[in-house]
């Protein structure tokens, strides 16, 4: 998984102080983020690959890498289909 996920223009994480939760805001969408979703998106910086994000989360939560990999991919793919996330192929030396 050498694709690099990023949040496209018009999609951002909003700290919803009224509900006390982070919310992903995009065009006519507002998704309340649970702890897992928030943790994954916190690693999405437009530079890290999906592999790298998975490694970091597995280390951070001391969890089996295979399990984390499935969660990460399912979550990111779902956002991509909704056009709330873009994938770019990794660029060499980038």
């Amino acid at each position: 998984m050498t694709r690099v996920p990023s949040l496209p223009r018009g999609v951002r994480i909003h700290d919803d102080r009224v509900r006390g939760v982070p919310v992903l805001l995009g065009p006519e969408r507002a998704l309340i983020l649970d702890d897992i979703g928030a943790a994954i998106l916190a690693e999405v910086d437009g530079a890290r690959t999906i592999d790298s994000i998975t490694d970091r989360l597995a280390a951070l939560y001391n969890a089996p890498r295979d399990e984390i990999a499935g969660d990460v991919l399912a979550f990111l793919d779902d956002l991509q289909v909704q056009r709330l996330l873009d994938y770019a192929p990794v660029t060499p030396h980038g």
Partner: protein
Amino acid sequence: MLAELTHRCPLSCPYCSNPLELLGREAELDTATWSRVFHEAAALGVLQLHLSGGEPASRRDLEALVLAARDAGLYVNLITSGIGLTAARLDAMIANGLDHIQLSLQGVRAAVADTIGGYAGGFARKLALADIIASRGVPLTLNAVMHRHNLDDLAATIAFAARLGARRIEVACVQFYGWGLKNQAALQPTRAQVDQAKRVVASARAEWQGRLVIDFVPPDYYADFPKACMGGWGSTGFNITPDGTVLPCHAAATIPSLQFQRVADAALADIWYDGPAFRAYRGTDWMPDTCKSCARRDIDHGGCRCQAMALTGDANAVDPVCRHAPARGIVDRMLADASTATLDDTAFIYRR
């Protein structure tokens, strides 16, 4: 929250969602009041703001309103026909934090689009603006309002959205309230058109997956169960009209028994939680027994009160679209009457 900043609009679409009695410029809230309302809305928990109209570009202070809304912490969506916007105004709004644009589309052919909009040359101006939006990279949704006269162009409409670089297209079949209801017989798509449209949408979704999101709102008259209007009355959204009247939905003022409040008279939070119009149909207590005991009670939320009002004269009645509604025959008769209309029938009553 949908902010109807103005009723003024260069177009005069025969399905306009504005009321039959339009407000003039002199009745409109000023910049400072809208700004206060945006901050009240954010404090209440509103996340998404839709700047709408009429044509919001009819307001000279639109750029300032975008800035005020972002300052309040809202996600700012501009709903526009594109008429009256220039590259300079668009750039000013983008600089002020505009998040997203929803561009309405009356048709993909100038003949249809300009006939529906009642504005010669409107389609060409819209195309020019769409190119400017695309060149700026601001996220774009195309809102294609579909009916008898353009539903057969659906595949071309979706391709048009993709060519413009839109991330989403909303294929919204006309709903029959106010102006739309006056023109229902001329706008109602046939059942064959709707069935074909569903096939086109299914195939296009597969073709464009991951590139273009396609939302489809079929016409509810052909459905067996009513739409979950507003996701439930007073549960997720509200409208504010140009003069600051707070409505549970854009058509709620057609229900004569309801009492509305204005942002000048009460705090938005008090109107939302305790206002008589919001309490009237919130939850399930108001429901007729047919709805209260129905397995779909928490799916449909009792359908649409404005539709019950418009078609039966009783806002408390079962939504007449529902198969269980005593008044379903009214909808079936309207469909039968409309089935004799032809594509040549464009004797619309335009909004004015």
